[in-house]
């Protein structure tokens, strides 16, 4: 028997409702102790996948393994998972203590053991003073902490988070995000985390799985996802403000577009030989050099400022390149107004190039 070094494995998972396919032949391996984020826009199937792992939805086909055990037909409570929901889903008529111990009581655990576990979880999450309150008397952050505690007391290997921070305001969200990260570092459990917020994904994840219409588009570390997106969809989805795309042709080491051309010498191609073809060049607004940095950039050009959006820390400048809007992210202290001529520099090694037809990375 093989020693499983995978915590959760998903094999050929398919889920269909009549004619609608929500998940199709999905395969995913999640390492022991890994923090995996399922990221995608709404309707991409990320929550459905999580619910399948939890056993709350029954797949049409495929298998799910947790800790080497085939759990495909097991009840949620038999799978060794804990789950935290977006709406907290605390039982309103029970106290915090009751919420934490409900699952343990259902498993007919000894009273002393229940108390010990509740006490431990309450200590870790610093909710000891709240144990005898009802959920209605808690703030949003406290409620979410109790919800995490409910997963914690189960002492399981895999934690599932279904958009746990979406109902909180921005400041609290940032605080709890740090806490979840700390919790993961302390506990070393496997965590699967669903979100549509790319900041949460980038900050929390060991690896991110970007999903679209029931499929994993790219699975990789935040760094890979950000710097080497494997498709135009991923490149467009990650990054805010989003990437600029220029239509043109790739011809023998050069990207040609209407009115300009860029020597792609510094760009690392995915394959040793790339034939000439229509292509899309993607450049992140923050990778466009301005001011003194322009001199260091291999490619230079000049644009006219159309619109300025000051955002405090930095300023987003809109211009036109090859007849299409082009975003440039500048320092917040930069003073630009509409109509200014701006010299910009581009570094092909930081750009991404995609096949115009398949939209896959070249």
């Amino acid at each position, binding site marked *: *028997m*093989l020693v*499983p070094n*995978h915590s959760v*494995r998903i*094999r050929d998972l398919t889920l269909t409702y009549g004619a609608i396919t929500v998940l199709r032949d999905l395969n995913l391996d999640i390492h022991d102790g890994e923090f995996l984020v399922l990221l995608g826009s709404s309707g991409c199937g990320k929550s459905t996948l999580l619910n399948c792992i939890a056993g709350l939805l029954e797949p049409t086909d495929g*298998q799910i*393994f947790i800790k*080497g*055990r*085939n759990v*495909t*037909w*097991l009840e949620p409570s038999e799978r060794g998972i804990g789950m935290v929901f977006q709406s907290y889903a605390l039982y309103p008529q029970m106290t915090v203590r009751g919420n934490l111990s409900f699952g343990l009581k259902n498993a007919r655990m000894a009273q002393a053991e229940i108390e010990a576990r509740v006490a431990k979880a309450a200590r870790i999450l610093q909710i000891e003073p709240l144990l005898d309150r009802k959920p209605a008397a808690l703030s949003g952050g406290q409620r979410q902490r109790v919800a995490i505690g409910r997963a914690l007391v189960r002492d399981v290997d895999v934690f599932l988070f279904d958009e746990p921070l979406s109902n909180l305001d921005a400041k609290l969200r940032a605080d709890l995000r740090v806490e979840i990260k700390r919790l993961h570092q302390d506990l070393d459990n496997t965590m699967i985390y669903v979100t549509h917020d790319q900041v949460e994904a980038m900050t929390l994840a060991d690896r991110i799985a970007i999903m679209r219409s029931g499929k994993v588009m790219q699975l990789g570390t935040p760094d890979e996802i950000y710097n080497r997106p494997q498709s135009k969809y991923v490149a467009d989805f990650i990054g805010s403000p989003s990437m600029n795309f220029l239509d043109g042709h790739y011809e023998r080491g050069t990207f040609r577009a209407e009115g300009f051309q860029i020597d792609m010498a510094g760009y690392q191609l995915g394959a040793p030989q790339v034939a000439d073809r229509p292509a899309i060049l993607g450049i992140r607004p923050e990778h466009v050099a301005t001011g003194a940095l322009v001199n260091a950039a291999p490619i230079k050009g000049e644009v006219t400022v159309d619109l300025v959006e000051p955002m405090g820390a930095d300023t987003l400048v809109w211009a036109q390149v090859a007849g299409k809007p082009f975003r440039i992210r500048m320092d917040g202290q930069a003073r630009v107004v509409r109509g200014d001529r701006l010299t910009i520099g581009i570094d092909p090694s930081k750009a991404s190039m995609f096949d115009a037809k398949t939209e896959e990375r070249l």
Partner: protein
Amino acid sequence: MATTHEASAIAESRAAPARRPMRLFRNLSAKIASLPMVLVAVVIFVGCTVWTVVHSFTNSRLLPKLEWDGLSQYERLWSTPRWYVSIENLAIFGILSMIFTLAIGFVLAALLDRKIRGEDVIRTIILYPFALSFVVTGLVWQWILNPELGLQSVVRSWGWQSFTFDPLYDADIVIYGILIAALWQGTGLIMCIMLAGLRGVDEEIWKAAKIDGIPTWKTYTHVIIPMMRPVFVTSLVLIASGIVKVYDLVIAQTGGGPGGSSEVPAKYVMDSMFAAQNLGQGFAASTMMLLSVIIILIPWAYLEFGGKKRG
């Protein structure tokens, strides 16, 4: 990499439960708990209805028996004058009570929706008859419409000697006497439903109409009423399905009189089955009632559910 995947997948699948739990026994508690509902749906609503329809083609009299008799019960039914009186009454009563209940219900709801003082009190007053049974309703209106001691005699005592209003003793207008009582009992419900519908209208619609300078009545006729179509449809279905069942009210208020002039189909069915010991007639007449409900329901179901699927 692919080979290790497969190898470990095989190893893992060995640890899987040997057999998938049988379909029938999954969620067994839920299925047991739903058993009463399933039985009611299948045995009562489908089974009993089919039974009655089938037996309407037999010559059952005192006891039901499956002796095929073709359409003769229906031929007999449609040659009985009392049946004609019944359906004529039902048609008059039905059409008028639909019109009046909808109109009065909507107008009252619109008046109550004008942010008036004492809304709760007035709504309570208009709705309380709905809590009373048709028997109570019928009896109290029988008393008020009593020509010797009721409304008519009071008006005459005020000096209008020729005043005549005795619907319960006049075969030509007796159905209107029943209508008055039915409206008194039922409009409150429709008003409440309409009021709920009006409250469901987005407040901003009113603001927009006010800024556009549209008069209130025009806002109602051109904006609000079209928006409330589903509420009207629901009300109409409720009224219609209640009308077909009208029985208690007639029994209590007139007993079908005077001279059988206020007969209704439901009473015809009851009398055939339990008094005249002519079950076949009762089954045939009740099948006709079912048919009329189906004729009302199909367009509604089409509007309500057919439209949704396409949209």
